[in-house]
């Protein structure tokens, strides 16, 4: 798959093919992270996060491909890992190539936005299975409301819709609480 095909696949929610192609970039990123006091598991987490950031950028429509996707993922992963080391108070332990390159496009990345998004994801993840499934089905846009209602066993579209709003209400409350706890710390 070419980079452009991968981007198109992600845009049309065909992530399986796109991600399979993108995982070819994982070994170099794992190597970079392991060379910088990271474990294999850290590399897995960081790379996964970089894929999610890529998706997010593509879906928000502000993604302009100025380099190869592999380079983009490497840059984002490097940035995320530096941030993580900083967070762990181990910034001075960076030993290889993390400081050696300059990736302006990524350095401008807003970590605050990223943290906010992670918090929202955490909130969704903590909802009950049914709410989570309903919301994911609804916003992934792959099914019509009618089909979602049938799939999830609701008596009508309206009742699925109402349930969706109730789930959102619960999620909003939880996210607000989480944000308040976070910012008061």
């Amino acid at each position, binding site marked *: 798959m070419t980079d452009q095909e991968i981007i198109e696949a992600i845009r049309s929610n065909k*992530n*399986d093919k796109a*991600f*399979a192609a*993108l*995982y070819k970039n*994982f070994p170099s990123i794992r190597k970079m992270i392991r060379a910088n006091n990271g474990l294999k*598991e850290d590399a*897995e987490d960081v790379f*996964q996060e970089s*894929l*999610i950031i890529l*998706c*997010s950028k593509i*879906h928000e429509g502000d993604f302009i491909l100025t380099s190869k996707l592999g380079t983009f993922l490497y840059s984002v992963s490097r940035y995320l890992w530096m941030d993580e080391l900083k967070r762990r108070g181990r910034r001075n332990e960076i030993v290889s190539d993390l400081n050696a390159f300059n990736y302006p496009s990524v350095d401008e990345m807003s970590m605050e936005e990223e943290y*906010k*998004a*992670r*918090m*929202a*994801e*955490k*909130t*969704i*993840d903590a909802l*009950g*299975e*049914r709410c*989570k*499934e309903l*919301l*994911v089905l609804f*916003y*992934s846009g792959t099914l019509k409301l009618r089909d979602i209602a049938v*799939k999830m*066993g609701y008596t009508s579209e309206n009742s699925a819709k*109402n349930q969706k*709003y*109730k789930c*959102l*209400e619960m*999620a*909003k409350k939880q*996210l*607000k609480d989480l944000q308040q706890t976070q910012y008061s710390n």
Partner: protein
Amino acid sequence: MRNELEQIQRIDQYLLGEIQGPEKVSFEMEMHSNKEFSDQVELQKQLMKGIKRTQWREDATKAYGKYQIKQSVAKLGMIGAGTITLIGLTFLLTKGDSTTQENKQPGTVITPANDSIKADSLSIYDVLKGNTFVINSSRDTVVETTDGTLVEIPKTLFNDSIPDFRDSVVYKKQTEGSQAKIYTLHFYTPSYKDSLKKWKQSIQEKNYSKTFRSVVSSANPKNYFKTSSKKHETIPERVSSKGDSDTIYKAAIGLNMEKMDDDLRSKNSKLYKLKGKIPFVNKASRYKNTILVFDIDNRNKSSIDTAIVIEIVDKLKQKSIISKPNKK
């Protein structure tokens, strides 16, 4: 509808681009003049991002699983596959029965492999009085316990590099007087919803052949990866045996679908999917003299009767999509 829900609905419609014209203008004016309202919009916007990320993360996790399988296959290669078969057969011929019998002695306690893991003492007798399955470790398998619990055991469980095993806790103990090592893998019940929904629908529609295909396809190694390597042609790509199809069919029909819908993590769930890897088995040769004991949910100690003992042998290589519990 309550006021709060109405506001959520309105914000949702705005974020989805469903509000246009004067209504949109008025919405945006309200956002500018009312801080509390604009905070609500922002919260909902964040949640929409969170929902999408949840989906992407699931996709990424699946992709990583497939990637890892490909890597394992590349690493193991022909020698690995051959070794498992050979060792499995050797084990079956020399140790299988005798070790199982020895382990039925009551009172043997399985202790944690890692001291930092707190474990309840567990009698191996209690474990073995459950169900015993002989399965083929190179194939995805669905087993059914005597109480009707279905467990899917993906072959990836036996690979050396499968992600996401962090939810699992492993205990091991080499039983005295036996060469067999006993391992207990406690794991959490993962979500298995998509397959279940499909099965449920098929069953409701009495579309049994579809159900059957769905079950087989979820247990078919072909779905996990495709390799061009000839050595894997020994893995059957589909099940054609009538006996197998009947068993799978029956197993799927026997599911308690209502319970599944409510909460898959509930201890009442009747279908489980083994997930992750057995971290200490990272070389094919370590399968030798090994019995794996699975406790279905470590938060439900009383379910010990549903524990499954799995001997790693290749005896059923060509046919075992489903293995029924051995009759005692």
